[in-house]
């Protein structure tokens, strides 16, 4: 009894989201991401000690009442550094993909809508970017601009830009053939108007899912970039550079790297769960 | 000698998040070997669910058989083990589906898919099985059957694919063939060819056929008896001639009146008022009573069983009181 009737009504408008709360994973994912964002925002006020304060007397200590997560090789409080580090890692983990999304989606929609030369040019450019390993991109940008906050963001944005472009392009190509698009063309709306009113909402579902999953990837990338010494610069903490510094003495004093690694895993876990849940709800077919 | 297939009081419910749907609600019918039965009804009346239940192919969540018995050759397949069911499916009973575009596996050649049935149920070498497949394709009238056997489903037309599906179903000489709207997805000319093919194959193989369709015309010249279903249960069951000549149930009468025919010049086709009740909100008593002009208080309160003669029965209280003339009494 498949529905042979043509879909004249715009499906995005009619689709009711299934109960979001029902899914266990969603709850955990949402909780995790919310707490992390909160920690990022309130960082400086809730960190018990100054993350930069060095005291070599108390260097490389295991977790204790005074230092919940122990101290690193400079004697700095790891717990405070993980909290303050949240802001750096999340900021990079969010800004990068969002920048990539803004540019990538527009480029993807243009390529998908107009096809022909624009499509071939943009796709060739995105394939080219895809052929650069992200970490190498980071190293080259760092060599040019110097390692740091902005390098990590640019490297991640460039790395994720092609993915958003391809996603938006294929989604646009599918949506473009639907009759409700012809209907709005007949109604005299220009291509940009149509893209905004019809194409964007229809790919919004898969975009939100992709964004949350790729934020998870971005946080992992920030960690890898910091591991190579290119991300957030000392003395400011970020999870990535905490692991890098902690790795030097992992057997003797594993705590800084252990807790930073756990923080990254939790953050990526949270966004992945959220992404999974959103995907199951909004767009079961999407695969990253 | 018991019948090839006896179905009594079969019930299938769908357990969906929005509540339980009684798709099939107490369906009973019998089928002798070599006989063929048409199950007719509008979309959503439960005819496909019934067919799938016979082969135990219901999609487990959300559908489940909640009651009744299905005896195939005396063996109740309700409590048949999975292994036993696998032996029956494809050899003793086989099924043809509605949309040939999606029925065949796109990544295997047609010949391979047919040969698989042979190798599953008969100990045959792959080459022998493939030869049987080519032979089966030939039997269903496909030109150059060996080329077609090596071809992939997307390389064949709709009609050819449906013939291949039929070949697959019949290759192991099943005793029962269930055809679920085999021609609905095909255009009219191909439809006729497929129906002729089924009639020829039925006579050659002696297989009993259950033909499920919403199109009364298709049923007319292929089946011996017809069961009309409405909202999950059988409302009338009779030889095909009687159903057309003297429909007993008001719903069947409505259906026949709604068929366009060349003889009568009508500018507006008569329809049955109201719509099919939604499965979640079934009316009490006889489910047709809200749309039935003969509806009485009894119809609203109690569901009518199949009344009347065994050969021609209908589930309608009106039957007893007005002794509608039953055409079968006169027919030999």
């Amino acid at each position, binding site marked *: 009894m498949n529905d042979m009737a043509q879909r004249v009504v715009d499906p995005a408008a009619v689709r009711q989201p299934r109960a979001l709360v029902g899914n266990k994973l969603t709850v955990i994912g949402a909780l995790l991401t919310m707490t992390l964002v909160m920690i990022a925002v309130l960082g400086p006020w809730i960190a018990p000690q100054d993350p930069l304060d060095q005291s070599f007397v108390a260097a490389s200590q295991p977790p204790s009442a005074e230092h919940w997560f122990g101290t690193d090789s400079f004697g700095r409080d790891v717990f405070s550094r993980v909290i303050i580090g949240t802001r750096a890692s999340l900021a990079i983990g969010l800004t990068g993909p969002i920048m990539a999304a803004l540019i990538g989606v527009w480029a993807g929609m243009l390529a998908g809508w107009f096809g022909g030369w624009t499509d071939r040019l943009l796709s060739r450019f995105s394939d080219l970017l895809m052929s650069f390993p992200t970490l190498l991109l980071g190293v080259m940008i760092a060599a040019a601009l110097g390692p740091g906050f902005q390098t990590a963001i640019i490297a991640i944005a460039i790395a994720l830009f092609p993915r958003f472009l391809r996603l938006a392009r294929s989604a646009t190509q599918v949506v473009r053939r639907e009759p409700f698009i012809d209907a709005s063309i007949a109604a005299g709306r220009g291509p940009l108007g149509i893209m905004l009113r019809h194409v964007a909402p229809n790919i919004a579902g898969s975009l939100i899912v992709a964004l949350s999953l790729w934020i998870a990837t971005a946080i992992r990338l920030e960690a890898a970039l910091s591991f190579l010494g290119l991300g957030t610069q000392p003395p400011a903490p970020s999870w990535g550079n905490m692991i890098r510094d902690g790795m030097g003495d992992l057997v003797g004093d594993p705590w800084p790297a252990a807790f930073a690694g756990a923080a990254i895993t939790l953050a990526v876990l949270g966004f992945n769960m959220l992404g999974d849940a959103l995907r199951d709800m909004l767009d079961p077919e999407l695969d990253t | 000698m018991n019948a090839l297939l006896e179905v009594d009081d079969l019930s299938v419910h769908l357990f969906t998040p929005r509540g339980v749907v009684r798709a099939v609600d107490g369906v009973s019918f019998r089928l002798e070997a070599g006989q063929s039965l048409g199950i007719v009804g509008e979309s959503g009346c439960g005819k496909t669910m019934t067919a799938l239940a016979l082969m135990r192919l219901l999609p487990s969540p959300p559908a489940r058989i909640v009651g009744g018995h299905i005896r195939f050759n005396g063996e109740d397949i309700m409590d048949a083990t999975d292994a036993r069911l696998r032996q029956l499916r494809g050899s003793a009973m086989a099924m043809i*589906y509605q949309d040939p575009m999606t029925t065949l596996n796109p990544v*295997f050649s047609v010949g391979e898919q047919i040969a698989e049935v042979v190798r599953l149920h008969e100990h045959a070498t792959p080459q022998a099985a493939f030869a049987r497949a080519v032979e089966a394709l030939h039997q269903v009238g496909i030109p150059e059957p060996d080329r077609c056997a090596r071809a992939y489903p997307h390389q064949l037309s709709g009609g050819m694919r449906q013939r291949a*599906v039929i070949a697959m179903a019949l290759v192991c000489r099943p005793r029962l063939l269930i055809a679920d709207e085999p021609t609905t997805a095909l255009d009219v000319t191909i439809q006729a060819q497929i129906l002729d093919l089924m009639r020829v194959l039925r006579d050659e193989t002696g297989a009993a056929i259950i033909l499920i369709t919403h199109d009364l015309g298709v049923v007319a010249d292929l089946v011996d008896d017809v069961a009309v279903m409405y909202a999950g249960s059988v409302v009338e069951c009779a030889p095909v001639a009687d159903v057309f000549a003297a429909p007993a149930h008001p719903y069947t009468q409505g259906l026949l009146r709604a068929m366009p025919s060349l003889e009568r010049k009508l500018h507006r086709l008569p329809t049955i008022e109201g719509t099919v009740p939604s499965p979640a909100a079934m009316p009490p008593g006889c489910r047709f009573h809200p749309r039935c002009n003969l509806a009485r208080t009894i119809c609203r309160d109690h569901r009518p069983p199949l009344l009347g003669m065994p050969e021609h029965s209908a589930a309608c209280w009106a039957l007893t009181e007005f002794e509608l003339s039953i055409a079968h009494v006169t027919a030999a």
Partner: protein
Amino acid sequence: MAGYILRRLLELIPTVLLVLTLVFLALRVLPGDPAIAALGEYATPDAVASFRQKLGLDQPLWAQYLSFVSDAVRGNFGRSMINGTSINALLLQNLPYTIELATAATLIGVVVGIPFGAAAAVWRNHAPDMFGRVFALVGFSIPDFYFGVLLLIAFSLKLDWFPMLGGGQGLLDGLHHLVLPAVTLGVVMAAFVMRMTRSALLEVLRRDYVRTARGKGVPEPWIVFKHALRNALIPITTGLGIYLLTTLSGTITVELVFSRPGLGQLLIGGITARDYTMVQAGLVVFAFCVVLVNLLTDLLCALIDPRVTLR
């Protein structure tokens, strides 16, 4: 079909040329100077001048570009600016290690990912599915270099089952060195493949031809692993192809942690030391690998799905 492969490889030329130009310009823009990197911080100005002259760095940019491209097209990548070793030799010696690692990781990813994914799809919302999703989420979340060091400490330092350094010599020793790095990358890959297999299989199991197969009396395992999986392999292969590119990038950090030779090391070292010829050669090879991976994926899809024609 050979024509198709040839055409795809020819298509490689414009991409590689584009990569060459982009890399050539990018490297020249970077601050820092190969002469300083080669001669050391104390190099006197005239030593630097003679070094630049010897390597032709003092010629105008376009001249350098032309000579570089003409050499590259003939497959001669010249010599490393820092210590003069022939780059072709360097690549021949180091590239196999990266290919080994990427292949091994992919094998682990597929061999672990697909069965687990299938199990998660068949027993949806039961034990295998739940366990599988948690494994996938965790596997997907741990940064690979961090996971690598944990493996190093556990299996190499404490248990001494595997060596800790280098890429090993010869087949057996090489494989012995390959295990931990391959597992590091393989686990992440397996998590990804598993999620893809699960969703692809769930999608396929809803299709009519699966019910047809059941209607033919085909046993359940055959249905999943023959009829359904073969169809599910199509989206899995394309997804795997794309993901393999991120794995190639992952080899860089893993090679660093395991002190393994490989393309990643050559490139990172090259950029840090401003070894232009090395980096240019390395990135061309990398672009070539990317195109090869895409080609392999398309060929694999054509093999699985008869509907795909190689035009």
